[in-house]
């Protein structure tokens, strides 16, 4: 009971639900001009259609579907003219409405199996009515006396013996979300491992050491050596990078010598002053 709380704080806590129900006033009261600019306020084409239908200011049962169709198409045209990027479903709806419009305007052909324009219009009207009914219902629901706001539970509950025979509590939701997040976590980990078709420094060093026997004192291009071991071109970059790093290490240990004549020129290797083959204990895998 310590004074008024800041409303902002409350919103922050409900981050995923930031899109509050109360956005109604701001979102819906737009003029048609601003609609073009702010399509973001709408939840898809049906929502937009419902809004347009309401601007006809008549009972939904008596809307003119043809007029509605024209409004929608005009709206989409305007949006495209000022290059608003429209989601695919808005365009799908536009295409469907254009079809509906042609159905409504052209007299029915004798041999035509498809639904009549009137049937299609009736269905659209039904869907709009149904969506509006659900919106109204949601409004009524949320304004009921709600637990924790209007109605309160016992503040100091006492312990009553468990209703369930099991001594543990868990809901199906708990179970499923535990499963899903665990599997997901694991799936992602696995993928990471799969992606790592990268030569590690240790790999590269091992391969270079295996190759020591083939060095005969002449300068040999690094690429040349690596290529015979790498059939997959996709791995070439990583292999050369790792091999080069491993080479530097071997040079530091005196097992190899390295030469490059200029930037972007081939890199040459040859045997270093130290004997290879016998590990003198100083070898560290990096």
């Amino acid at each position, binding site marked *: 009971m310590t004074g008024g709380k800041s409303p902002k704080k409350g919103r922050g806590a409900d981050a995923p639900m930031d899109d509050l129900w109360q956005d109604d006033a701001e979102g819906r009261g737009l003029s048609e001009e601003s609609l073009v600019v702010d399509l973001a306020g709408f939840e898809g084409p049906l929502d937009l259609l419902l809004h347009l239908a309401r601007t006809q200011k008549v009972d939904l049962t008596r809307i003119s579907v043809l007029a509605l169709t024209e409004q929608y198409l005009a709206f989409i045209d305007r949006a495209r003219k000022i290059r608003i990027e429209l989601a695919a479903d808005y365009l799908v709806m536009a295409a469907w409405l254009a079809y509906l419009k042609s159905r409504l305007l052209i007299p029915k052909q004798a041999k035509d199996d498809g639904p009549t324009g009137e049937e299609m219009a009736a269905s659209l009207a039904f869907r709009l009515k149904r969506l509006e009914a659900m919106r109204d*219902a949601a409004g009524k*629901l949320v304004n009921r006396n709600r637990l924790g706001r209007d109605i309160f539970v016992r503040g100091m509950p006492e312990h009553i013996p468990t209703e369930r025979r099991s001594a543990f509590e868990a809901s199906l939701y708990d179970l499923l979300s535990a499963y899903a997040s665990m599997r997901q976590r694991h799936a992602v980990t696995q993928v990471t491992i799969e992606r790592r078709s990268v030569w590690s420094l240790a790999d590269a060093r091992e391969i270079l050491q295996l190759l020591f026997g083939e060095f005969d004192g002449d300068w040999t291009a690094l690429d040349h050596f690596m290529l015979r071991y790498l059939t997959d071109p996709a791995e070439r970059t990583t292999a050369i990078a790792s091999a080069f790093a491993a080479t530097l290490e071997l040079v530091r240990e005196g097992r190899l010598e390295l030469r490059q004549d200029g930037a972007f020129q081939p890199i040459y290797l040859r045997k270093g002053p130290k004997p290879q083959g016998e590990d003198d204990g100083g070898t560290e895998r990096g």
Partner: protein
Amino acid sequence: MAEHEDDEAESGTIVDPRRLHEAARIAEALIFASAGLVSQSYIAERLPRGVDVLHVMRELKGLYAGRGVNLIQIDDSWAFRTAPDLSFVIRTDETEVRKLSRAALEVLSIIAYHQPVTRAEIEDIRGVQTSKGTLDVLMEAGWVRFRGRRRSPGRPVTFGTTRDFLDHFGLEELRDLPGLDELKGAGLLSGRIPSNFQVPLPLGEDEIADDEDPITALDLEELGLLTPGGKADE
């Protein structure tokens, strides 16, 4: 037990008042103690033998009607709740219910009025894909649950509301949903669109097509599982 005796027991007339009073005390204490809902069968198990639980509950409910604390029935369960008209005295600055997004609330009422309902049906009514997390939020709140599977091709999972949903919105049963009868009468809950109205829904972002590429390192970055190249964690 003879049949006519059964009848009498059911009407609750042969119960001796002292035992009835005792039974009412027990039921009262059990429900009062709990902040949550107490099922009628649970109460019945704990009443003295031969007492009709329904009779007791009806008696108790009458006793608390009009008081500051009311006994209410939710589905097959009971709870004491403060009278709605007294909210102004009890409410403090701190009491606030979580606000649901417009979309979540819409999905919730569609589930309430149309249950059992599949996700595809919800999307059909709203004309949009249900965004990720909407159903999740409702389930986490304990208002929506998986109900079962539709016995139709693909056996899609169906959703329904919970007892906590009824409790939260002060409904005794689903039949008390506001305007339910009118909506039914208007054919708006039939779930069946009169004629063949079919606007195709575009493939949503949640959908994984068969030919979709496996996850990449770039995807992992987007998921927040890898920090984008070289940058420090935010």
